[in-house]
Each structure stands twice: as structure tokens, then as C-alpha cells.
């Protein structure tokens, strides 16, 4: 079995989840509590990766992260290295690909918090940032946990985006889904079957956890 591909997959999913929990929380707060003209356009833009084919996202990321793209160009001028075909490159791709799955459950959890609790926090002297950290986050743990599990699951299943942005470099960008694809291409069904089988209990256990969390938040 290609343990290296499984290792890269789990590493990528964990890093993506950690990064997205930090990035998505303020975005979800912004969408949940701020009203501004064009908010629905911004919201649709954030959820766009959910609706686009992964190859389309991959294509635009290649353009953006390639040596002539402004992100890839800046990176190359700073480090002298390419962003494409690196672990960092597929991490960026994975973060963008999964961002809707982090923002949406968090936003739902934030919206559910009674506004009077926030008002009480302001009365008690808390700034908006302190209220976010001391009141909103602790009262949205179910939504945040659901978001992190969804992002993790979505990340371990990513294929098209990662293949386009990262290729298939063992130990660097070759994730399990790509390893399965390559094994099947080479008619090695036993290797493909073993990696595929390892996904089922992981995904099933995490989905059970999401259901438990949803039941908990409804109770």
C-alpha cells in the first residue's frame, strides 16, 4: 500500500483544516453580523468553489500560481522557487477548494447566537473582538467542529484540483486519491483497492461524528 500517499493526504487535510478554521471564522463572523451593499455578491463569491468543477478551480489556480501569475510571480521573486508542484501549492489549492465547507456551518452557528448575549457582552465592557473570542466562539463549538470535520473530509477526497496544481510527486503532492487513480491506470487493482478501502472507515466515522454534533446542536 502507498503509505506515503496516505501520509501526504492526512497531512494536507490536517493543515487545510487548521488554516481554514483560522481564516473562515472571521469571514463567517463578517457574513453573519455585518450588513453592507453587495453582501450577497461577496457571499456567492466565497461559496463559488462549491459550485465550480474542480478542474476549473485548478485551471485558474495554475494561472494564478504559475510563474507568470501574480501570486506565483511574487512567490518566485521572494524565494526563487515555484509554487506549483509543491506541498504549499496544493495546500493553497485545498484551502480555496474547501473554504465554503468551513464558512457555511460556522456562519449558521454564529447566526443562531442570541443577539442579546452579544449586547450583554458589550454592556459588560467587551470589545467586538473580545466578544467574538469570549462569547461567540465558545457558544459555536458545535458548528466549528462540524465545519472542521467537513473540511477534513472534503480535503482527503480532493482530486482534480490537486492533480492540476500539484501533479503527482511522491511524498510531496501525490495524495491518496491520485495514487488510486494511477494504480487503476496501471491496472494494479489490488493497490488501488487497499487505499480506497482505508478511506471508508475514516469517512464513515467522521460523518457519524458530524451527525452527532448536529443532533447535539438541535437538542
Amino acid at each position, binding site marked *: 500500500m502507498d503509505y506515503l500517499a496516505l501520509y501526504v493526504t492526512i497531512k494536507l487535510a490536517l493543515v487545510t483544516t487548521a488554516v481554514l478554521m483560522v481564516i473562515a471564522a472571521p469571514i463567517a463572523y463578517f457574513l453573519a453580523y455585518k450588513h453592507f451593499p453587495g453582501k450577497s455578491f461577496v457571499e456567492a463569491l466565497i461559496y463559488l468553489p462549491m459550485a465550480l468543477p474542480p478542474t476549473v478551480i485548478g485551471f485558474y489556480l495554475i494561472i494564478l500560481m504559475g510563474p507568470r501569475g501574480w501570486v506565483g510571480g511574487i512567490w518566485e521573486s521572494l524565494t526563487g522557487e515555484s509554487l506549483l508542484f509543491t506541498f504549499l501549492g496544493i495546500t493553497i489549492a485545498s484551502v480555496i477548494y474547501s473554504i465554503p465547507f468551513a464558512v457555511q456551518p460556522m456562519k449558521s452557528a454564529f447566526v443562531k447566537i442570541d443577539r*442579546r448575549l452579544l449586547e450583554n457582552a458589550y454592556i*459588560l465592557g467587551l470589545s467586538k473582538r473580545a466578544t467574538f473570542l469570549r462569547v461567540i466562539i465558545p457558544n459555536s463549538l458545535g458548528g466549528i467542529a462540524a465545519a472542521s470535520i467537513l473540511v477534513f473530509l472534503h480535503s482527503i477526497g480532493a482530486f482534480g484540483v490537486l492533480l492540476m496544481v500539484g501533479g503527482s510527486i511522491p511524498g510531496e503532492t501525490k495524495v491518496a486519491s491520485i495514487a488510486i487513480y494511477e494504480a487503476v491506470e496501471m491496472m494494479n487493482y489490488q493497490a488501488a483497492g487497499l487505499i480506497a478501502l482505508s478511506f471508508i472507515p475514516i469517512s464513515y466515522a467522521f460523518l457519524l461524528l458530524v451527525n452527532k454534533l448536529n443532533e447535539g446542536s438541535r437538542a
Partner: protein
Amino acid sequence: MTISAAFRKKLKYFDVDISFDCQSEKMMVLIGPSGGGKTTIIRMLAGLETPDEGRLCFGNDIWFDSLRCVNLKPQKRRLGYVFQDYNLFPHLNLFDNAAFAAVDKKEVHALFELFRIDHLKKRKPHMVSGGERQRCAICQALARHPRLLLLDEPFSALDVVTRRGLREEIKSLKGRLSCPIIYVTHDINEALFLADEILPVVDGKADYDWMQRTITREPGEGTPTRGAREPRLSLVY
């Protein structure tokens, strides 16, 4: 210190247009029918709503002045505000709730003893009764050493017996506090029992005859406020 308020705010069914003063160690009770603008007034005092025009001062500090474009944030006013409910943070136990913004956490123990909820310190808000929750909410407000204490129908969701007990506790507390207290209620008995000064508010304006009219009118001939007279979908169904 005296809180001096004079402000106007346009609401959907009427305009709030009121002015009053309340001195330290005094309790002013805002009374009037439901939907008459009492809560809007207290929310403007707290800084949770902004008047359209007017002035609000606490001693020499200006909290709101429409002419000078001053509007102090609720965080800066150092208030105690007890809502009807939902004061407490569900993720914290009662002690941590009361100590949330306490000046000195040791005082919280004394407050809990004073309000007889010392044995419930470790309980979460959903594990205690409504009366105990409101006692804790009062402790939370007092632990901050407020310059002004606002109580917005704090006992209206409680049963009669609990309400009576808490009313007594508030009355005895009043003598120990040095800040002005503004108390909102629609219960005339409560107002008469607690108030040093009563300000009847009807449709957003002071109506000093309202209590007399309410006490002397025959049952069934009540005149609800304009806000309450408007047909509402929930009443239609």
C-alpha cells in the same frame, strides 16, 4: 452623580420624546403599558440604540450629544444592565458568569452569599431556576461596579412568589448602592413598592396622569398604546 436624559427617537408607531433626571442612590421607575417605548428608552441609556437627537449626560460626562456628534459606546459607559432574560452566557457556570466583568472576583462570592445562590456557583444557567438566573444576572451587573444600574422588567418572566421575594431583595439592595437605578416595569404595585420617583411613559412620552387613569378606570375600558393597537399578524390568526 445624576443621569440627565433628554432625547427623541422616531419609532414605527410613535416618537419617543422624553427628558428626565435621576440622582445617585435614587431609583426611578419607568412605568407604562407594553409597547410604550420604555425598553427603547433604557436601551438608549445603555447605548444599544442611538437617539435621533438629544443629549445624555452622566454627571459631567457626556454620553450622547447629537449636536456635538458624541455617542459613547456601551463598553465605555460602565453600566449594569439586567434584561428580562438571556443575561447569562450559556457556556459559563453561574460564578464565571457573575465574574465575567467583575472588578474584583472576590466580591462575587459576597454577592452570591447576599443573593443566596452561593451553593449554585458551579451550575450552568440552564440547570437553575429563572429566579436564580436573575439573581446571578444582578450579581453580574453589580460585580462590574456600575455607574448606573438599568433593570428592564427583570422579574417579568418569573412566578408571583419568586417575583415578590426578588422585589424585596432589590429594595434592600437599593439602600446599599450609590449609583442611580432605572427600573422598567408595567406593574403598578412593583413601581409603588420600589420607586423613589415614577415616570409613566405612554407612546414614548411622559404621561403623569397615566397611573391615575389606570388605577381608577373600570375593567375592560383600557386604552392600549398606539403601538399595541396596531393589528398584528399573530392576533389575526
